[in-house]
Structure formats: structure tokens, C-alpha cells
């Protein structure tokens, strides 16, 4: 008899709520009962609200139980979960759970399904199909296919990947680089981390395809230091890819050479800004560079460099293997393909939701998310990280795509959606936005470096009920100066959460002393 396969995620989010202990307990009880099982430490499938999500392979189906605590394991054995029996924690076939079935997973197609470091599983599930097809195409054709797909940068700015690639392709140089931005500094975002921990070969494959398209021979993945598990997993995956011949002197036996290294960040948010990241990789202070020159022309060590986010590169294999037209048949307007949304904060069913662009905020937060974790009403949703806008529930019919969010005074950023219940005070959130900017500013521009501190003080005055209307005007002026006088989006977009809070939640900025009397 073949050992029953039991999946217990090894992803750091799952481990943070006890997955390691659950895996040990399952192994222990199986051994005691003399039952042969094979425990596979997959990545997370993204339903973080179900973690630790234990799955048992029953014929073609994976029967899920979650969230499983160590104390639950004995009961699971008693109820015969290894035969897929029912149990209060059972969610039956995981793929048929509406939360999964209603998603459209393209970039995240394989994430969390198998042992992330198994190349044979990777290939068995469509891995390397994109690269194999790319090796039969010319570099022009690859770049053209990416342009045609409509793929835009998933790191925040939304710049068309194909145009960036073409620029690097057209720039002559003895050496060209790829830099993958895995700094993922936005609070509320975790897709880069989960992909790296759960399906690292997809990122590697995407980078190899990009390298072939633009003629780069060296790549670096810059991962934030707060992600030690992702760094370790990626290094292990690169070693396997080297061994396999996916990386190295001759990619899959072709005449293309591409080597990949991992670099760790050192605790700086602004190092997620692409030129600050380049400075950091060059071993310097992470100070933002002025543009031009564009990194595509003069980037790492002054050489042409493609900088893309983890999700951008990781979308490439599917686009090349399935074709641009399949990818762009999803989405709306100029926001084509799928977006990997990340639901976090005070949300009942948080995690990874990949769907075509154009889903409404309501369907994300109330549908997939199921409302708040606390059970209180939703008051605010921050979209796009710490530089993104706070929206009220009145905006729930908003279409989640680049253009609609921009028109509504917000931005999509890296796709993070953070939910707050009625306990939140938007004046305090606005003050935090300013404080965060003051702490993380690289220091190059005065409005960002000093304006942010002034901004935080001014909001405190408003909270304390001092000269409220004059201070509100001062704050808006300050926001304008920051927007106009900052080199990068750190100082330039910090006004977005602040102003959106003031506009969308005016009562939180009223005179609190006057209100009391």
C-alpha cells in the first residue's frame, strides 16, 4: 500500500500559527498507530484564515481540515481524517471550496500545492513550459509577447513590463542585469513572500525568460531581511536550479547563460524604491537616485538593468506558455490579466485572492474576506500599502483596477488591502503615515524629511483640538509641498493616506474639544 499523502504547510505564516507542531504531532500519532503516511511540507495555498490547513490526498482530491491546532490532531485521527472522513474542521475538497473555486489563479497556479523544492513536481504541474517555449522564440518575440499581454509592473507603479524590457534589449552593453524587487515593504502585502516560499521555481523561470529576452547574464533577487524563511527557500531553490541546469552557463542546454544570487535587505522601507535598491545592492546607503538616467539604461553598476517585482517576473512563465491573448482576456480596460490581491488586517478570511482586475472592493472585502475578524462593521480599507488611500464602505462598488483607483484618489500599489473595523481613528492613521515617512525617508528631499515630522505634529494638534481649522489648512498645504517637492513616491505619496483620511472620514478630523463641550 502506498503511504497516504498528508500536506502540512511549511510557509512562515502557517508556521507562525503552529504548523510545525501540528506536523510533528501528526507524524507522532501516525507512528504510534502504525499507519504509514508521507508528510509533505508544501507552501501555503493562500487561505491564511484556514492555517494550519492540513490536507489529505484521497484519490484525485485533497480533503482539507483547518485551522488545525495541535490539540485537534488526536481527534482528527479518531475520526479517521486519513480516510477523508468528516470532522468539524473539515472543509472537504479544498479546490471546491468557493473561496478557491471563485479565484482565477494564473501567477499563483502552483503556489502551495507541492513541495516547493521538488523540480519533478514543478515540471509535472506545467513548470518550465514557458521557458521551453521561450527558447524557441527570438528575444524580440518574447518581449513583444509580454508587451502584448498587457502585463504591468506589480510592484506599485504599474509600468508596462514589455516596454521596460524592450529598452534594456535595445541598449548596447557588455553586461546587463536583472534585479528582482522582493523588498515587499508595504504593510498588508505578502504575495511575494508566499510565492517565494511556495513556488520559487516560477520566479526563477520568469527571470530566466526575461534574461533571454533582454540579453542579461546576471540576476539578483533583493529580499527584505524580515523574510528569513523566504531567503533560505530561494537560496535552496537556486542551488537546485543550478544543479538542474535551469541556471548557469547553459540554460537547459542552450547557449544562454544566466546566474542568480540572493541579496538581503537591511531594514529600510525606501530600499524598495528601485534606485535606492540599486544603491543598496552596490553596498551603499539606500538613497534614491535622480532619474534620468533610467535604470533600464544605466542601472546596477551603471549597466542596463531590468527591475521588476516578484509578481511581475512570476507572471511571465504563464504568459509565455499560455500566450498573451489568454492572459489579456482577463481584466478590464488597460488593467489586463490577473491581480494577486492580498487581504489582511482585521478581516475574517484573509489571504491571497487572485482574480482578474475589475472585481469590486465589496466582493473582495465582504465576499472573499467575509468582513471583519472582530465582527464589528468595516469602517475603512487601506489599499496599496502605507502610501495608499483609506476608503470608506461607501466606496465598496469601486472596481479594483489601476485606472479606477487612480480616479478615486487612490492607487493599487502592490495589491494589499487592509481592513479596519469601527475602532479605527483615521486621524491617528494619518498621523502614522506621516511618522512612517519621517522614519523611512532617505533624507534627500526636505519636504519628505522634515515635512513629514511637521505633518505628524500638525495632526497631533488636530487630535488635541488645538486650532483645528487652521491646522487642517496647514496640513493640506504641507501635503501639497510634499507632493510637489519630493523626488520619489515616499514623500510624494505620503499625502495620499493623509488626504484620503481627511476627505473620506471628516468626522475624525473635527474639533474634538468643541465636540465635547
Amino acid at each position, binding site marked *: 500500500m502506498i503511504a497516504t499523502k498528508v500536506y502540512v504547510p511549511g510557509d512562515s505564516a502557517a508556521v507562525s*500559527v503552529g504548523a510545525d507542531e501540528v506536523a510533528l504531532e501528526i507524524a507522532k500519532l501516525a507512528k504510534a498507530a502504525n499507519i504509514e503516511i508521507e508528510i509533505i511540507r508544501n507552501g501555503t495555498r493562500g487561505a491564511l484564515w484556514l492555517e494550519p490547513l492540513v490536507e489529505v490526498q484521497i484519490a484525485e482530491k485533497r480533503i482539507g481540515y483547518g485551522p488545525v491546532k495541535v490539540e485537534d490532531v488526536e481527534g482528527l485521527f479518531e475520526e479517521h481524517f486519513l480516510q477523508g472522513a468528516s470532522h468539524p474542521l473539515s472543509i472537504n475538497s479544498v479546490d471546491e471550496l468557493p473561496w478557491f473555486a471563485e479565484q482565477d489563479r494564473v501567477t499563483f497556479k502552483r503556489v502551495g500545492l507541492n513541495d516547493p523544492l521538488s523540480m519533478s513536481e514543478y515540471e509535472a504541474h506545467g513548470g518550465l513550459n514557458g521557458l521551453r517555449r521561450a527558447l524557441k522564440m527570438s528575444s524580440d518575440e518574447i518581449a513583444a509577447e509580454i508587451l502584448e499581454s498587457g502585463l504591468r509592473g506589480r510592484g506599485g507603479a504599474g509600468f508596462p513590463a514589455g516596454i521596460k524590457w524592450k529598452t534594456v534589449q535595445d541598449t548596447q552593453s557588455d553586461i546587463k542585469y536583472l534585479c528582482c524587487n522582493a523588498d515587499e515593504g508595504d504593510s498588508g502585502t505578502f504575495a511575494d513572500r508566499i510565492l517565494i516560499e511556495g513556488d520559487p521555481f516560477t520566479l526563477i523561470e520568469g527571470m530566466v525568460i526575461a534574461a533571454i529576452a533582454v540579453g542579461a547574464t546576471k540576476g539578483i533577487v533583493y529580499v527584505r531581511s*524580515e523574510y528569513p524563511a523566504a531567503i533560505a527557500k530561494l537560496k535552496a531553490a537556486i542551488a537546485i536550479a543550478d544543479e538542474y541546469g535551469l541556471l548557469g552557463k547553459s540554460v537547459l542546454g542552450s547557449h544562454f547563460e544566466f546566474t542568480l544570487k540572493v541579496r*538581503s535587505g537591511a531594514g529600510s522601507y525606501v530600499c524598495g524604491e528601485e534606485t535606492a535598491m540599486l544603491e*543598496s545592492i552596490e553596498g*551603499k546607503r539606500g538613497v534614491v537616485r535622480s532619474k534620468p538616467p533610467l535604470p533600464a539604461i544605466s542601472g546596477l553598476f551603471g549597466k542596463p538593468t531590468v527591475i521588476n517585482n516578484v509578481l511581475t517576473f512570476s507572471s511571465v512563465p504563464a504568459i509565455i506558455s499560455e500566450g498573451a491573448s489568454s492572459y489579456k482576456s482577463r481584466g478590464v480596460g488597460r488593467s489586463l490579466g490577473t491581480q494577486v490581491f492580498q487581504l489582511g488586517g482585521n478581516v475574517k478570511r484573509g489571504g491571497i485572492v487572485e482574480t482578474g482586475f475589475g472585481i469590486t472592493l465589496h466582493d473582495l472585502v465582504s465576499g472573499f474576506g467575509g468582513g471583519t475578524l472582530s465582527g464589528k462593521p468595516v469602517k475603512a480599507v487601506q489599499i496599496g500599502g502605507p502610501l495608499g488611500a483609506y476608503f470608506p464602505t461607501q466606496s465598496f462598488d469601486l472596481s479594483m483596477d489601476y485606472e479606477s483607483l487612480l480616479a478615486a484618489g487612490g492607487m493599487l500599489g502592490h495589491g494589499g488591502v487592509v481592513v479596519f473595523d469601527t475602532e479605527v481613528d483615521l486621524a491617528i492613521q494619518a498621523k502614522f503615515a506621516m511618522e512612517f515617512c519621517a522614519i523611512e525617508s532617505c533624507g534627500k528631499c526636505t519636504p519628505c524629511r522634515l515635512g513629514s515630522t511637521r505633518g505628524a505634529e500638525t495632526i497631533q494638534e488636530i487630535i488635541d483640538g488645538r486650532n483645528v481649522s487652521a491646522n487642517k489648512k496647514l496640513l493640506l498645504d504641507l501635503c501639497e509641498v510634499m507632493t510637489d517637492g519630493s523626488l520619489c513616491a515616499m514623500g510624494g505619496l505620503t499625502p495620499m493616506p493623509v488626504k484620503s483620511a481627511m476627505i473620506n472620514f471628516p468626522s475624525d478630523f473635527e474639533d474634538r474639544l468643541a465636540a465635547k463641550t
Partner: protein
Amino acid sequence: MTHATWSKSAGLTVLEPLRDEPGPVLIALQALQEEFGYIPAEAIALVATFFNVSRADVHGVFTYYEDLRSTPPLANEIHICVAEACQAVGSRNLEQAVKTTYGEQVRDVFCFGNCALGPTVMVNGVLIGRATPAKIAAAIK
């Protein structure tokens, strides 16, 4: 995590493999911190002479990055996420409680990428989701 004791010769052993790295200063400092747990003042001077860059430059890099530290790690290192997603699930109160109990040993961090299972705290390298004072206490040495 146990760390080696700093000495100049031990420092040189760490730096030697990085000799040919382009732009080596930050990785050198990171490697030294990994080995010794912190970066003694003497190590800054060593990096400067080893890679033939100015001490001011090395010092500039050292002070820029939040992760790099000049003092040995404490018995317990508690890193608490104070960013928005954790704020939404009560990290501000947790932060106060944790700082009252553990004082100096607590450092603020902006995001571990565990935003659907906050509040998140890392104790001595171990990530704790849905953190509570009790869970943190259990992880303390």
C-alpha cells in the same frame, strides 16, 4: 542563535571570501553581524582598510540601515510589527504591553508579511502570528 566572539582575525576570516565582490560594504557588514551578532567599532575600521574605502563611507552605510547594530544582542530579541495591518488587529495595545514587560529588548518592525494573521511578533527569530502576551511569554528564554 549563538555567535562567535569578535576578534580582528576572526573578522578577516569573514571578509576574505567577499574580497572580489563588487560593492562589498553592506554585505560585509551583514556577514560580520551574522557571525558576531553585532558590529563592533573596530570592525568598521577593518572593513574600511580591507576594501580600501573610507571609514566615513563604511560608517555611513552602517548608520543608514536599521538592522545593523553596534552592541551585542540581548538575551531576548523581540521584534514587534507596528505597521497598519497589525494596527488593525490591536498591535498598538500589544506593543504597549510588550514594551512595559520587556523594555529595551523590544524593537519596532514594519511588517513581516504575515498581515492576515496579525498581530505579529518575532521572538528570537521565531515568528508568532495572532500574538498575545501569553504566546510571547512562552517563547521567551
